[in-house]
């Protein structure tokens, strides 16, 4: 268990230090800020359209973060750990995944919280000045914190900025949700805000499933294969509703190997008269995606010791 924790921590720290992760998050935030531009021709569905586009940007940012975190290079600290302590393949594989998932969660949480700030229920969704102020303040303060930490302590700018961004965007989301549209404080979240948060939860769970596939592919066959595995899961997951019947018709349980993102895709719910999703639906959908992610990771672990992937060093070091 100590090995697992040590690997997870080093994997988490290594992933957070990846500049690509910060770049992915900042790119997602910039794209998120562009989402309201699509409302010019949204007609009566303006709010639904902005939220749909915003949610797909959060999904895009989430899978970018998953790709980066899932295909991170083995850090020096992790390599040193592996060389100095006997670590089993399970601890190496699952600990690394836990660390990557945690780093991915920090990045995705920053994007999702910022998305919640920008897409919250407000009178002028596209040009809600207050939301933009909160988002800009959180972003700039986070970058400043990262720079200050790097300048004063000589530590990684990326990890500092990402950590600060996660905390500050969460704080900004809390403030934005607490503020009533006309000023003052709100007693409870509006239905539209609850729906947005429900859709975000389901989207982040889909991101976890992608991360799991990326990690397994990356550990077994190298980073390009990890990216390919993630891409395949995204594509198949988004279209499974359309070809699921074909999979069911095959006598092999192939349907199990593909998660169903389309079934829980929150963008569909922003149009029409659905106010709030049933919590049973959200819970089951999230649980299904998490179970699939666990299944993919365990399947990867099953194949891990017998393949010459990145985990070979763990075996070479005498673990097992």
């Amino acid at each position, binding site marked *: 268990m100590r090995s697992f924790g040590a690997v997870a921590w080093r994997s988490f720290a290594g992933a957070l230090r990846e500049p690509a992760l910060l770049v992915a998050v900042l790119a997602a935030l910039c*794209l998120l800020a*562009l989402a309201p*531009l*699509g*409302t*010019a*021709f*949204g*007609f*009566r*569905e303006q709010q*639904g*359209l902005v939220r*749909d*586009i915003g949610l*797909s*940007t959060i*999904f*895009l*940012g989430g899978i970018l973060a998953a790709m980066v975190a899932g295909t991170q290079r083995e850090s020096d600290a992790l390599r040193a750990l592996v060389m100095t302590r006997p670590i089993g393949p*399970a601890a190496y594989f699952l600990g690394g995944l836990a660390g990557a998932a945690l780093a991915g969660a920090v990045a995705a949480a920053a994007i999702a919280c910022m998305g919640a700030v920008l897409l919250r229920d407000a009178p002028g969704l596209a040009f809600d000045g207050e939301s933009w102020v909160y988002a800009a303040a959180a972003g700039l303060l986070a970058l400043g914190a990262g720079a200050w930490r790097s300048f004063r302590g000589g530590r990684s700018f990326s990890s500092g900025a990402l950590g600060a961004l996660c905390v500050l965007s969460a704080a900004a989301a809390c403030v934005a949700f607490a503020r009533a549209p006309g000023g003052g404080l709100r007693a409870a979240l509006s239905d539209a805000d609850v729906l947005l948060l429900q859709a975000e939860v389901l989207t982040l769970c889909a991101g976890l499933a992608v991360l799991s596939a990326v990690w397994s592919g990356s550990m077994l066959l190298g980073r390009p294969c990890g990216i390919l595995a993630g891409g395949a899961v*995204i*594509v198949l997951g*988004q*279209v499974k*509703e*359309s*070809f699921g*019947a074909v999979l069911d018709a095959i006598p092999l*349980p192939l*349907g*199990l*190997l593909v*998660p*169903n993102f*389309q*079934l*829980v895709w929150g963008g*569909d*719910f*922003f*149009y*029409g008269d659905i106010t709030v*999703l*049933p919590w*049973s*639906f959200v819970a*089951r*959908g999230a*649980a*299904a995606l998490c*179970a*699939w992610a*666990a*299944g*993919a990771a*365990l*399947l990867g*672990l*099953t194949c891990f010791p017998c393949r010459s992937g990145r985990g070979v060093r763990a075996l070479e070091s005498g673990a097992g």
Partner: protein
Amino acid sequence: MRRGIALLCAAAALGAAALLERGTRACRPAMQSGMERQRGDSLPPAVQLASTLLGSFRALLVDYLWIHAETLQNEGRFFAAAEAARWITMLQSRVEGSWSFQAWNLGVNVPSSLPPEERWPYVRAAVELLWRDGLAANPRSLGLHWEIAWFWAYKIGGEIDAAGPRYRAEVESAGREILGAEPWDPAAFAAAEALLPALRRDPAVARFAETLAALGVGDVEGGWTALWAAPEAVLGDAADALAAALREDPLLEAYDRGLRARAWRRTFGVGMDVVAKAHGRFGDVGLLRPESFVLFWARHGLEQLAPDAVRLDAIALWRMELRALTRLFQSGEIALLAAIDREYAEAAARAAGDSYHRKQEASFLEDRIQFLKGAIPLAYISGTRRGRELAEEHFAKLAELDPAGTPRVACEDYVYDWIYRKVNVERATRDELLAVIRAFLREALRAAARGEDDGARTYLDFARGLYGEAAAVFTGPEFPSFDRVAAQARRELAPARGGRAKGRAG
């Protein structure tokens, strides 16, 4: 050993994921009210993928495409604009406005640049685009239902397009081929369609299908209506015997009806169950008239509305429905008077019960009064006993609704006053004038039957004079000759089938 445990755990986790997915599907909020969500109800896979993975770039792309499409449209390049609009609908499929834009381009702009004989495929494609693709992505959209109803009411059934009669003829021809020989009972069609899966399993039906396949019919069910429109061409000498079997065997007859109902749904987008509901609600509103389709689509749309809910788009659909009913009434479906009045009353009551749309109540009441003022004389002079009864009944209701604006006279006097004003002061429509001419002709016939020659001559002179004035205003080949009008008036006086008298003289 450990690997085996990991494999077992992986299998358990994936199995749990599959079970949970099933549970998730079961409790997913319905996108279509009253219908269980089915696989494939979502967007097409490529569209879903593109929509999701483009992220915010989708917003920029859609903006560019909108501006591009508008520019092309303003330049009169309608085909190119329609292509750009197709991309917009792919990227913005949940936005009603994008479907309306594309349908307008395809069904209104493009046909306007073509000769009348080449327009119908585009108009049909526009209507199909709205129900096949637009409603698939937005099944509960009342706005899209209104758009479809608009095409039926104005483009196909209205006078805004010179090719309107062609469109109506195409619909009539396609509809007759699908429905087969009259009489057509929508409820029977709907019931047979629901029974299709069970009918297919019946040995007699299976044998019949095998016989057809053996005679060289490739796609038995897919080409059913075309096959029976001209069976000799494919079935040769066996055609008569097979057609007789279809008529005589109740199971085969139901199979035939079911397949025709399915073909109807696939061609016109609206099922026979909806048609049957519309007939049940309003009475006989026909099947192949543009106004009938307006009613079907309006009903289909309003079914998506929660009970007692009132929205602006629902009000627009009610108005579309009332307009179609009124047009049917004006074209001779006098029995609809009661249904239309009831619909007005219901719409006003629903609006009154909604705090946000309460103002609409007065508007509906005003429209109801105006409708009754015009409809009562038409029903009265329709020549049927039922028409006269309806007129008298609703004249009393009109006096209740608008005591200040309704003269305190008998219904007959009100009607003759209306005729006098229509003929002398106001410009009557073609149908109104023809109805008045027929009324005078019927009176002339009745007077002649009673031996009152002078009275008959007076009525006949009135009719001739009025016809002369009408013919001068409504020139053209479609305006019926005096003899045809007289023949119709005579038919209206003739005893109805089954021995029941039709009209006052019956």
